[in-house]
């Protein structure tokens, strides 16, 4: 059978589909009944040049009960190693830092960005979701999720309703979630803006220990998040679909990163001390998202735009697109492009000046500073017999932090305080 003709491909695709509550049911050649089970699995490697490396494995299982109910379960295991920027600035001298546990220290060579490599952590996350069709126009879902890593625990509940209008051309969805997180940092939570105790400053181990303990608070901290999203999905035409969402998120509790510090420098840009960072204990975020997705004869294309803003004054714009092209009815290639631009949180500063009074909140974490990121990805997928599919994805992700308007004093001008972070993402997925 010749599949060179584009419209043949689209017909082949049209047959192999239809969602049952979002669950694809493919008629297999040998059985009359569609399979009630659907399994998706993926393993992903994320690696930054000289920094963090992570491996993540996901398994997702969907089981349909009759034609009105769907159970969706997911298990994720990820493992993180490597170093990430601590927030301290590069110096012309060698720097020594105390590890978060207080046991031992690490050094940063002259001219290098200080990276803390203490992080080796494994996280396990599990979630379950139940979706129910209540009537031809009403659908509902409820779910629970939890995750655990060495110093972190999270538990959440989510629920939503969907109402369709106009012969299912318009769908309105309202969903909400509540999440509770508890963090018990390695070495105890640092006292905000306390100065990092350095072994070299003390004569005896006991004196050092006493000083270190003064910078720590025992016990765990928690954080509560309430999310709400209003979504409208609209069929524009036979081939095009559109979605617009508004999301509101309210977070309260401990949001400081217990492992991040700021360098306090003098007029020559030379570090006098390292202070543990401090972030506000509440955050109200808004997100506005729009996307359109189109069915092409030999492919699929989507475009999306997201704008976020919050009371930390961190605003962002995201533009993203995916373009898939079917080389045959069974093999496709897909290009992914993403552009992200973020404006620094109002308490972000790359360093503190020794003479100035301490601000109420401060963080030098580049992830909340001015930043532009670019993603370029390529994915290939092949459909195998029996409705199985295998795909491979390779992406390049580059983060470009930028100076949001701070004067670099003295020796700080000789160093790159906003280095690029380059990462590779590689993933293999299988579904059946």
């Amino acid at each position, binding site marked *: 059978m010749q599949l060179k003709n584009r419209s043949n491909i689209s017909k082949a695709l049209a047959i192999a589909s*239809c*969602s049952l509550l979002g669950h694809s049911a493919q008629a297999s050649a040998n059985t009359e009944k569609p399979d009630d089970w659907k399994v998706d699995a993926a393993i992903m490697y994320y690696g930054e040049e000289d920094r963090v490396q992570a491996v993540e494995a*996901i398994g997702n299982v969907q089981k349909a009960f009759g034609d009105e109910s769907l159970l969706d379960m997911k298990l994720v295991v990820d493992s993180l190693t490597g170093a990430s920027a601590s927030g301290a600035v590069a110096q012309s001298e060698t720097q020594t830092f105390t590890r978060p546990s207080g046991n031992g220290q690490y050094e940063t060579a002259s001219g290098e960005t200080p990276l803390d490599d203490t992080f080796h952590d494994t996280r396990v996350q599990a979630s379950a979701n139940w979706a129910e069709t209540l009537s031809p126009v009403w659908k509902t879902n409820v779910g629970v999720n939890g995750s655990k890593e060495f110093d972190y625990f999270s538990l959440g509940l989510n629920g939503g309703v969907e109402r*369709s209008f106009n012969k299912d051309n*318009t769908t309105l969805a309202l969903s909400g979630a509540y999440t509770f997180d508890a963090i018990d940092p390695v070495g105890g939570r640092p006292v905000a803006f306390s100065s990092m105790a350095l072994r070299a400053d003390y004569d005896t181990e006991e004196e050092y220990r006493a000083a270190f303990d003064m910078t720590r608070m025992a016990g765990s901290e928690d954080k509560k998040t309430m999310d709400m*999203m209003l979504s409208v999905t609209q069929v524009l035409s036979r081939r095009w679909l559109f979605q617009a969402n508004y999301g509101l998120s309210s977070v309260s509790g401990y949001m400081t990163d217990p492992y991040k510090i700021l360098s306090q420098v003098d007029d020559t840009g030379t570090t006098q001390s390292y202070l543990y960072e401090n972030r506000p204990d509440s955050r109200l975020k808004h997100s506005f*998202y729009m996307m359109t997705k189109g069915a092409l004869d030999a492919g699929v294309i989507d475009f999306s735009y997201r704008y*976020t803003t919050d009371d930390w004054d961190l605003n962002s714009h995201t533009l993203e697109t995916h373009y898939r092209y079917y080389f045959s009815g069974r093999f496709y290639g897909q290009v992914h492009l993403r552009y992200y631009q973020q404006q620094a949180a109002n308490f972000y500063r790359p360093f503190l000046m020794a003479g100035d009074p301490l601000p109420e909140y401060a963080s030098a974490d580049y992830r909340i500073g001015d930043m532009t990121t670019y993603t370029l990805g390529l994915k290939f997928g092949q459909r195998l017999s029996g409705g199985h599919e295998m795909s491979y994805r390779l992406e390049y992700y580059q983060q470009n932090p930028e100076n949001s308007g701070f004067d670099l004093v003295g020796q700080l001008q000789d160093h790159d305080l906003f280095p690029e972070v380059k990462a590779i993402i590689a993933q293999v997925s299988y579904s059946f």
Partner: protein
Amino acid sequence: MNRTIISIAIAVSLSACSSLGVEPWEKDQLARADMALDSEKLDLALDDHIYFSKEGSSGGRSLAGGGCGCN
């Protein structure tokens, strides 16, 4: 100000939505598995996790709607 404009835009598009769309038998293309909004949900979940960890903002997507509209 921006927020007001955007919320009005969403409300207007909602009301304009009543005349847009296709007949139930014209949903063949939208019924395609690759047109479902959750068609690459593992990729989307992995991406969201990466960007949530490396950037200052998160969220936005919803997986509701679309599809063949059957049942």
